[in-house]
């Protein structure tokens, strides 16, 4: 069975599965895209952001 047929049978054949695929893919993409950009941002701005210098000023680490 060719790959396209597998994909068709798995995701596109039933509308309920198709809609669920779209929704969950959007959810997964949203999270991964945001975290990807965030990790790039943190890498690019290493040492400049508040979270990088916060440890110097927090006292007693909130017991």
């Amino acid at each position, binding site marked *: 069975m060719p790959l396209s047929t597998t994909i068709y049978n798995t995701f596109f054949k039933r509308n309920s599965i198709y809609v669920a695929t779209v929704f969950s893919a959007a959810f997964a993409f949203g999270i991964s895209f945001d975290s990807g950009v965030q990790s*790039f941002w943190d890498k690019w701005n290493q040492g*400049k952001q*508040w979270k990088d210098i916060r440890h110097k*000023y927090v*006292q007693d680490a909130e017991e």
Partner: protein
Amino acid sequence: MLSSRLSTGAFRKAGSMAASRSTFLPSTKVRFASSSSSSNAFESFMNSRATLASVSLFTAGTIAWYTHLYGTLPFLGEVHASHLSDEGLHPPKYPWPHSGYFDSFDHASIRRGYQVYREVCAACHSLDRIAWRNLVGVSHTVDEARAMAEEVEYQDGPNDEGEMFMRPGKLADYMPAPYPNEEAARAGNAGALPPDLSLIVKARHGGADYIFSLLTGYIDPPAGVEIREGMNYNPFFPGGAISMARVLFDGLVEYDDGTPATTSQMAKDVVTFLNWAAEPEHDERKKTGIKAVILFSTLFALSLYTKRFKWGPIKNRKILYNPPTDKTGH
């Protein structure tokens, strides 16, 4: 291309026609004298000396009137000896840590800059639009911000007896102003109003570069420039004479992170702080911008692909014409 389509005879014919027209102009004029009488009147009007004289007079009069009204000739540029007092020296571009497309603010610098603002600038300049809570998570911890707010007394009320009372500050309170109102600020500064610094980076041409240049640019006035008593010379300030004296000197503040407090270091830090105060959304904005550019360029590429995909068959189709077969011949 054109000449290849036309025969040479056509050119020769056209040339001879033009020659004959110019040669026999008087005869054609006579021939159509009745039908072209109005154009003749118009021509004689255009060529008359009275028209020339009156138009010249009108033009000269208009220019004279304009010159009388505005003092300069119209449509003629004027050359002025340009002086920096017109707009001040333009600041150079400085490589700020936050000037790139992907660069966040340097928050350690914001923290130092707040210290400079608090110890130096806040004596005269207010910072109306920044509350203590805004510092939390940017340059100070909650506990530090709360402690700093509690050092300031704010008026609150009315209480049960209908009287206003003073209380220590809360995180939600805004930065205290050095003067109660504008008149008091002017009276305390020889008539000059120290501007509020909340949006000053946005409010000045050149932004952060300008303010940094201004703070570090105080020099003695050059020969021939008179500065009034109580004013100071700064080439970056429009007009050159600024009421604010130089305030940043090496070692004026003591940074708690051990950074040497040189004049330029303090100026850089306080300008970074003021830039944050003017654009507190700066870091989030740039991060959102990265996401938006990625997403929208992807969508744009997709739409281009879709367009080509859909139009491909239409653009590439070949329309064939099959002539009707001659049925009678069969």
